[in-house]
């Protein structure tokens, strides 16, 4: 038997070792997931290709996809969604890494503080952002009182603005503590002697960060930023309430198509939703592949052999 075959065999043997009770115990949860998620996905797919439509003749057609992909609005919305999700994810990743490093030596209170924003609903956060950043908001009034601006017209537009500052501020407020919490846990698992060892081998603090701390932190960074990206990319209520009025993000486009009086738009909405999921999943897969370091890893140390 070749080593590869033996490995494959061993893997299956590992699965066979699991008792039938374990499979039985997993069954209820698994069937629920399959029924609700898989079933929903299947129905959505059937609707999007015209097989289960409310309108039309019930024959297979890719018209909904054609309409979705053919509209310039789709591409603008995709651009906007990517812009918001990528910018916010990148910003919160960088800031969270810095914050986690700062709080590394702090006690349990640091982790506790990071959990404070977790239970606050997004809607409450959105209301807070509106109260703070809108042209008649607290900050605007404070600046007016201080005499820094003469009317609320002088206050920069930070809510429902084309640059989506309000949306991103909200996401940063929500996601930085979340990411910091994850990164803190990973950091605490890295043995402090490793940094000591690196220093003693000639690494400056900066080199120590790039060569040792960051690579060891990488799995945490990848998973935390994935969760944040996936969440922001698919989020509806924040850009809906705080975002620019045109263009709108992809989830809003889906919502608008779905609630359109024209029932034909229903299948377009579902096609859009599936496209949104597909884009999200592909980006996550690409990111995981890059994050694993697989494409960059050199197999042979010391050159040609």
């Amino acid at each position, binding site marked *: 038997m070749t080593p590869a075959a033996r490995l494959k065999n061993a893997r299956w043997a590992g699965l066979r070792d699991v008792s039938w009770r374990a499979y039985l115990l997993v069954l209820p949860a698994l069937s629920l997931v399959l029924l609700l998620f898989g079933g929903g996905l299947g129905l959505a797919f059937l609707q999007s290709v015209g097989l289960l439509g409310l309108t039309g003749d019930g024959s297979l057609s890719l018209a909904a996809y054609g309409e979705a992909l053919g509209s310039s609005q789709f591409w603008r919305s995709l651009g906007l969604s990517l812009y918001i999700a990528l910018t916010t994810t990148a910003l919160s990743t960088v800031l969270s890494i810095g914050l986690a490093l700062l709080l590394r030596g702090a006690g349990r209170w640091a982790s506790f503080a990071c959990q404070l924003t977790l239970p606050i609903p997004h809607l409450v956060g959105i209301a807070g952002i509106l109260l703070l950043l809108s042209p008649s908001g607290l900050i605007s009034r404070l600046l007016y009182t201080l005499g820094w601006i003469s009317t609320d017209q002088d206050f920069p537009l930070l809510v429902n603005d084309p640059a989506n500052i309000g949306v991103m501020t909200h996401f940063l407020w929500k996601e930085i503590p979340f990411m910091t919490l994850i990164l803190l846990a990973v950091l605490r698992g890295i*043995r402090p*002697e*490793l940094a*000591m*060892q*690196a*220093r*003693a*081998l*000639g*690494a*400056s603090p900066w*080199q120590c960060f790039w*060569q*040792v701390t960051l*690579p*060891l932190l*990488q799995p945490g960074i990848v998973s935390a930023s994935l969760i944040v990206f996936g969440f922001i990319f698919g989020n509806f209520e924040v850009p809906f309430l705080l975002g620019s009025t045109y263009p709108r993000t992809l989830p809003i486009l889906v919502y608008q198509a779905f609630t359109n009086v024209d029932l034909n738009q229903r299948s377009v909405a579902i096609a859009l939703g599936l496209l949104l999921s597909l884009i999200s999943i592909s980006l996550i897969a690409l990111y995981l592949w890059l994050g694993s370091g697989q494409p960059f890893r050199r*197999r*042979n*140390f*010391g*050159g040609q052999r």
Partner: protein
Amino acid sequence: MSELAYCAIQNLTKRFRGVPAVGDLWLEIRRGERLALLGPSGCGKSTTLQLIAGLLAPDSGQIVLNGRSLVGVPPERREMALVLQRGLLFPHLSVGENVAFGLKLRGVNRAEREAQALAMLAQVQLSGFENRRPAELSGGQAQRVALARSLVIRPKLLLLDEPLSALDANLRSDMQNLILQLQAETGVTMLVVTHDQSEAVVMAHRIALMFDGCLRQVDTPEALYQQPSDATVARFFGGVNFFEAIAEQHCLRLSGGNRLTTDHPQHGPVQVTIRPERIHLLAEPICGINLLPVTITQSRFTGTQRHLALKTPTGLELQAWVPPGQSFTVGESAFAHLPADALWSFPSANEPSLPDAVAIRGG
């Protein structure tokens, strides 16, 4: 500072929250020397090592390496290398990348550093391991990689912190040999921290013995065994025989009236010690000098030796380690010969008492 000193540690002091960990330490290391910093755990030896490596800042004192003061010099510019207890490898790098780590930091180009790393791996007998991950190595292999990683940067001073304590006995002696061999090949000056006196004896030219943050005796292994500066040192090296006497030059008068002759003159009340393995046990009083009649009160076979507990008619109790072939039974009478060159003494009042339960941080 003497001419010979390559690395001089002067007046080094470190406190943790007011508690002294290292107090007024003076130590000189010669070029190419293997020096062991030996002491029980918590005596401040690891703290000393971290002070030398620059990972901790001393409260006072300085370290001079090769004529250059290291005050305020960060660890990365001290031209030293440190090997820690478990051969702590970077888990995200392959074995080869681990060895090349220090060279990469120094800006050595890839081809050059990989060639050097491979050569170094061959020296620690790990050729072919360069593409493995650290998780795939045994403890001994990891420690060898750590050693290679430190030596490849050609440090001026190689610091080893308990490098063998995580390894099992067989592996430990292999590693000892490897370290000694590599040190001989590279000529690197080496400071090894250990709590194991047998390890210090094998690995070092000289041993600096440390108790409670202070150096007690810096000497060759032989001197520490045969001529300890006080009873604490003697006990640390396995000394078990201690008795009071009045010394008049070469003559030691014991309390029971016995007289012994020593090669090491002293004066006044002294504490006498003799290594248990230096006591000869004779069935008949063959030679007349330094013989004490004894009764054997206990006999224990240890495999390589027979450990005997002896008692003289005057009540003096001694322990003698004799070759396993010598068969003495409990209750039997014999004569203990205490060779004059093996009898060592120090003034009775000389033994400084250790401060009670001073909390010392670090190992």
